[in-house]
């Protein structure tokens, strides 16, 4: 019995210190991104630009493809239900609203967490193991400013871009189905989409994507900084960065969707 209690206690303490570490890193990232530049500590735009290509531009094909498929699946499932009610016309609306409010940001976040979150963890973890992070600190250069903030900036810019792209790809995927199967014309598809969507659908999705970007950067980099041991430790951190990111993304999704629901 005392063994179980001790285990629970240790587990809880570990969890609390993990969450504390994430919170502390987020605070530093936000400070170095939004406060420090006004105190003469400029941002590393060159490095951020490089990261934007890695996390943003290079993710375009995979995000586009998955979103396209997701749009088709949504249209198929929606048509299965709506056609029973003779409401096949609303399939397009269903796809549009689901993609912009929910699936666009979510799919983008999951793909980026898998591609880039793990890459952040592996990169920083390797630097930790080879003492490169210590070397930065010894020079008096802040590792959060030099290594984490460019990644955060990249996601800050790229998550909304990728999300808009994912929204569009998903809606097109759905449209392809409705045009093929339900014999809607392209003009019908456009009108239906425009009627269904309001600005708020898109903006709430974009706000979510910014939150997801912070989650992915913080978790990936925190896992990288906390690597212990050699190559094995790097692998473990890369894996758990994906698991933890996706969990926290869904958690943030619940919270923000609830907020938008009750304030909307």
């Amino acid at each position, binding site marked *: 019995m005392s063994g179980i209690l001790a285990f629970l206690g240790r587990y809880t303490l570990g969890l609390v210190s993990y969450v504390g570490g994430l919170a502390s890193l987020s605070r530093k990232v936000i400070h170095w991104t939004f406060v420090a530049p006004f105190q003469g500590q400029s941002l590393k735009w060159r490095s951020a630009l490089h990261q934007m290509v890695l996390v943003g531009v290079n993710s375009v094909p995979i995000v586009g493809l998955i979103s396209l498929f997701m749009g088709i699946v949504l249209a198929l499932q929606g048509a299965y239900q709506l056609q029973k009610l003779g409401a096949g016309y609303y399939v397009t609306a269903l796809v549009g609203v689901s993609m912009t409010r929910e699936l666009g940001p979510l799919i983008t976040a999951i793909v980026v967490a898998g591609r880039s979150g793990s890459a952040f963890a592996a990169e920083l973890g390797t*630097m930790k193991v*080879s*003492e*490169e992070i*210590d*070397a930065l*600190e*010894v*020079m*008096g*250069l802040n590792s959060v400013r030099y290594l984490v903030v460019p990644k955060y900036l990249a996601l800050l810019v790229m998550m909304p871009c990728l999300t808009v792209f994912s929204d569009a790809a998903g809606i097109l995927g759905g449209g392809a189905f409705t045009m093929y199967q339900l014999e809607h014309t392209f003009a019908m598809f456009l009108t239906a989409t425009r009627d269904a969507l309001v600005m708020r659908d898109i903006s709430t999705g974009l706000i979510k994507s910014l939150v997801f970007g912070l989650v992915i950067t913080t978790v990936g980099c925190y896992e990288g900084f906390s690597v212990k041991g050699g190559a094995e430790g790097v692998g473990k951190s890369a894996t758990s960065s994906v698991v933890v990111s996706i969990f926290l993304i869904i958690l943030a999704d619940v919270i923000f969707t609830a907020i938008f629901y009750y304030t909307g």
Partner: protein
Amino acid sequence: MPDDFQGPMIRVVDLVTHYGDRRVLDHVDLEVQSGETMVIVGGSGTGKSTLLRHIIRLDIPSSGHVYIKGDDICHMPLERFNLLRRKMGMLFQSAALFNSMTVEDNVALPLRELTQLEDSTIRIMTRIKLGLVGLSGFDNYLPAQLSGGMKKRAGLARALAMDPEILLFDEPSAGLDPITAAGIDELILKLKQAFHMTIVVVTHEMASAAVIADRITVMHEGRVIAVGTPAEIRASPHPRVQQFLNRTPDQETRDGQAYVQTLTQAPS
């Protein structure tokens, strides 16, 4: 930071530190005078690298103080220590070069980030530092293209970039063949004579310590067990020091009863 500072450059007082529950440094005292080369020797896991990390505030002690030029670095704001840290350089065991940058960019990084110098000036200074460590012409190599000894030299050039007064070396000869290691020792001696730097070297190579040291500190199980000139250390009666000098392995104590007990005991 007065430049006519008289006392010891580095003073470590009653330093205690823990990794988890294990006490790694146990009431360690150390003084390094200006212009002196202090070599810290000891077996693996005796806390000598940890001590070095405390001197440049990569670790914060459980208790005790580290003074650099009379300032307590453990309790000063990080911004102030970062100014002090510019006058300190460190060569890491693995050289810790940034793998994504060329050798030149590695050496130039502290100059680009911490000074307002023109890019052309930085380029010249970088070339001078690389020449100093014998790496002229390797400016555009990536760290992965260098041998172990060359990486250490490049790491040293980077540590020298800001013209430090204090230079710290973590296991400079680890992983190098004896000839390359001797080359690094030679380089340390050259720097010491040319720039009158205060140097702290952590190593387990007694041969290397004897060549470069003004004084040697011997550590064992987180404590300082002997301090003195190389000759004094050789003459030390301390059994651990003699064991280290003579490369005698630890005697395995085989108490039959206790041995059986350790085998049959349930893990706690």
